[in-house]
């Protein structure tokens, strides 16, 4: 039996084979969706760029060459031009991918998970647990996000690490809201009652039965928030509270280029395009993932 037949068989022999088959089917769904593949290609390219930065970049991202300042794209061996200190913008974007991925990755892993736990617990238990957790969420939601992040960073000190922490702390409440709403629709379902009748505890029900139902809305929400997360990091950098110069962070690069926007458009535009393309990639991939993750959408 070939690998293809082993994966696509209607009657898997083991749990492992069944799971591999599901993964394979999900992958085929994803491949069939050209937009999702485009998103995946963008993300893969971003990851490769970050991992191979020293080989992909043409210049040192930090060394300043003042005689070459503000060269237009293509001039003097700088494909995307240079900034106000003569640094190669292309190389800075390549190295900046590392910081962007670092911020996005850590926020995307922490905030939704925390929001999911808070939201499902509030929705499932109800009563005073719900009241306490949701009022706490409301308090976080009531502050403008950037202001709250500012306050956190001001208290914790400037730097990429603290910026990530601040963004994560301000990003979780919407996930908690989404997760709670989803939980409320499934908590009285018969399959939850059935699990309870089998003696399942609250932890098992929330993790195994409630969370899978919330996951697709949260994943979509996360991918839509990616652009916002990058921009919040940029905003913090702009205010001198995020990535510190000379670190090549995309948002910081935009705010530095703002001063020359009319005469030297490429300084701010190039990192802006980078943010745009990466956000688009996350959105496309997220949309495709949602479809692929839902077993019900599989062709029958």
């Amino acid at each position, binding site marked *: 039996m070939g690998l293809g037949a082993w994966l696509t068989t209607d*009657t898997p022999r083991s749990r492992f084979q069944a799971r591999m088959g599901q993964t394979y089917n999900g992958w085929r769904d994803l491949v069939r969706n050209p937009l999702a593949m485009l998103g995946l290609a963008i993300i893969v390219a971003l990851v490769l760029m970050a991992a191979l930065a020293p080989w992909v970049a043409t210049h040192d991202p930090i060394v300043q060459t003042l005689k070459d300042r503000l060269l237009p794209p293509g001039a003097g061996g700088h494909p995307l031009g240079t900034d106000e200190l003569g640094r190669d913008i292309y190389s800075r974007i390549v190295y900046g991918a590392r910081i962007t991925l670092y911020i996005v990755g850590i926020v995307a892993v922490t905030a939704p998970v925390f929001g999911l736990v808070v939201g499902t617990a509030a929705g499932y238990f109800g009563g005073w647990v719900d009241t306490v957790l949701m009022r706490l969420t409301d308090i976080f939601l009531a502050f403008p996000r950037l202001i709250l992040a500012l306050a956190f960073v001001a208290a914790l000190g400037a730097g990429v690490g603290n910026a990530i922490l601040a963004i994560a702390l301000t990003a979780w409440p919407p996930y908690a809201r989404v997760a709670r709403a989803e939980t409320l629709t499934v908590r009285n379902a*018969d399959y939850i009652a059935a699990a309870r009748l089998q*003696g399942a505890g609250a932890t098992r029900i929330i993790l195994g039965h409630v969370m899978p139902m919330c996951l697709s809305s949260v994943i979509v929400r996360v991918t839509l928030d990616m652009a916002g997360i990058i921009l919040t990091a940029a905003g913090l950098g702009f205010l001198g509270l995020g990535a510190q110069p000379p670190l090549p962070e995309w948002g910081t690069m935009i705010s530095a280029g703002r001063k020359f926007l009319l005469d030297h458009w490429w300084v701010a535009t190039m990192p802006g395009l980078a943010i745009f393309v990466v956000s688009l990639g996350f959105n496309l991939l997220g949309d495709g993932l949602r479809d692929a993750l839902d077993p019900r959408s599989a062709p029958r």
Partner: protein
Amino acid sequence: MGALIEVRDLNVVFGKGRQRVHAVKDVSFAVERGGSFGLVGESGSGKSTVLRAICGLAPIAGGQVLLDGAPVPHGIAFARRVQMVFQDPYASLHPRHTIDRVLAEPIAIHGLGDGEDRIERALDEVGLGSAFRFRYPHQLSGGQRQRVAIARALLLEPEVLLLDEPTSALDASVQAEVLNLLARLRAEKGLTYLLVSHDLAVVDHMCERLLVMQHGAAVERLEAAALEAHRVDTEYARTLLRASEGYRR
């Protein structure tokens, strides 16, 4: 022999103030070990609520539920002795779990050994082959799903099976198959059934004794023999009987 399940003056009340609904009023009955007891009534007569109250899924406002003469235990201990099959097999199986995962769950919760064998055996018992094991519920028909739900309930080898309209969501031919399956399993395993249905024909087929309920209260107690001979006392029971006859024609 004493009753395995006894319900004494059970009262169930939902809500407070103006929204207060007295769903079950002073209902009492007993089911002996190995027996099969039916609760019959129209929609909203409180029959399903009685089942849910026994399981702890509905709030008991008064009265007692006894299992083997003792108050029903809670949580894990209860699960080993009493299991339930829900009305709607489309709602009682988790849409994102494979049949394998559905059946593995009770085994994991109760720390039972040889899970693989148990799952295979459970699927065989309800007439589903292992070909169905790694499917999702949406890939199964209603009758097949209800068989999975029955397999799940029987995995823990309970003494009592609560059946909440187990066939009303299925079409007529599948209904007969599932009822025959339930009857066979009861004979094989010596199970005690408490069956809820609005259909007297189903209860007649499955149960030795039954209780007719209306508006949350018990109306009439009947033996299956009396039902067969149409010896019913109350007007309401007669109406139900007529309804089921009309259906049978």
